[in-house]
C-alpha cells in the first residue's frame, strides 16, 4: 500500500456549510473520497492510500490540477483507491467538492 499526503494553498474558501461528504466506493477501477471541512480557509490537504504503487507523479499532477480548478480551501480530502484511472480520480474529487458545497436544507 502506497500513501501520499499533499498539503497545498487554495485561493479561496470552499462554498457551502456542510461539514463532510463522501462519494464513490472502493472497487476495482474506482475509489472513495471523504471530504471534511476541518482546515483553515486557504489550506487544503489530500491524503491518498492506494494499492497500486509507482504512480506518485500521476497522483501529484491530478491533485495539482484539482486544486487549481476547484480551489478547495478549508477541505481535507481522504482517498481510498481501488486502482482508479486518473480521469476517474479527477471526477470523484470534483463530485466530492460539489457535494460538500451543497447547502444544508
Amino acid at each position: 500500500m502506497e500513501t501520499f499526503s499533499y498539503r497545498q494553498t487554495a485561493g479561496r474558501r470552499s462554498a457551502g456549510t456542510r461539514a463532510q461528504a463522501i462519494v464513490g466506493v472502493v472497487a476495482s477501477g474506482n475509489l472513495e473520497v471523504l471530504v471534511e471541512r476541518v482546515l483553515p480557509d486557504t489550506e487544503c490537504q489530500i491524503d491518498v492510500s492506494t494499492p497500486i504503487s509507482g504512480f506518485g507523479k500521476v497522483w501529484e499532477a491530478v491533485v495539482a490540477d484539482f486544486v487549481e480548478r476547484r480551489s478547495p480551501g478549508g477541505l481535507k480530502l481522504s482517498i481510498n483507491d481501488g486502482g482508479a484511472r486518473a480521469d476517474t480520480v479527477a471526477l470523484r474529487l470534483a463530485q466530492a467538492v460539489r457535494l460538500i458545497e451543497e447547502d444544508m436544507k
Partner: protein
Amino acid sequence: MTDQKTVTPFQRHTSSWYESSARDRVRLLLDAGSFREFIGPEAREMSPHLDLFDLPKQFDDGIVVGRGMLGGKPLFVAAQEGRFMGGAFGEVHGAKLTGLLRAARDTRPAIPVLILFDTGGVRLQEANAGELSISEIMRALVEARTAGAKVVGLIGGRSGCYGGGGLIAGTCSALAVSEHGRIAVSGPEVIETNRGIEEFDSKDKSLVWRTMGGRNRRLIGGADAFVDDTIEAFRAAALLLIERAPAFDLDMLKAEQARLTERLQRFGDCADAVDIWAREGIADARSVPGLSTEAFTAIADKAREPRYDAR
C-alpha cells in the same frame, strides 16, 4: 454523517435498487433527511486485517448503520455496499450490524430494524472474525426479535444474499426480494466445486436464477414479498412487512417447523424449481420466469407455501 437532500416520489419510482449504492438506498428509502449514521466514514473505523494482504480499505468497512424514520415512524437501518469486496462480512462490518441489533434489543418501546442485504458472505481474508460475526449477528437478531423488534430484510443488490448473509436472512421476521435478489447459503460456484457439475452447473444462469432467484424464493415461502427493482417498491414492501410480520414466540416457531417439514415432504424429490412450481399447481410453470411482476404476484399470492404467516 447525516444527509440533507430532499427526496421526491419521482426519484423513488425511477431509482433502481440494484444500481444504487448502499448510501443512496438508505437516503432514498427513508423519510427525506431523517437518517443519522452511527460510526460514519469520518470515524475511519476500518478493517484491521486488510493491510496484511495489501488490500485497500473502505472508511465504513462496506456497511452503513444508523437510525431514521419510515412513514413517520422511527427505525434502525443497516445497508451493505455490495461493490466493496462483494459486500462481505469482515470483523468491523459485522460488529457494526451486531451493535445495531443490540441497540434494537435494548430500545423501549421496540422499533423495527431494516437490513439491506447485499453480500457474498464472509470476507475470506478475515475468515474466523467474519464467521464469528455471523454467529454474533444471528444471536443479536434473535434477541432483538425476542424483545419485540421486527427485523425486515430487503434483498435486491448485485451481490445477492449469500453465505452467512443467507443464514442471517433466514432469521429475519420477513424478507422482501426483487427479481435481481438471490438468496442462498452456498453460491453456484461453491456447489459446483464441492458436488460436481452434475449436481449444479454454475454456468447455467437460468438454473441459478430459477433456483436462488427472487421468484422461486417467493413461491416456496422463503421471501414474503416480491417487488419491482425500484426504491419505491422496496419502501412500500418494508412498510407492509413491518406491519404484517408475525410476533416471535413459540407458537410461530412450531408453525414454521411444521411448514418446513411439510415442504420437504411435498417437494423433497423435485429435481428442479419448475417441478416444484408445477406441483404447487401453477399452470404453465415454465412461464414463471417471464411473467410481469403483477402477474407473478397474483400467482404467488394464491400459491400454498407463501400463505403461511410463519417464518
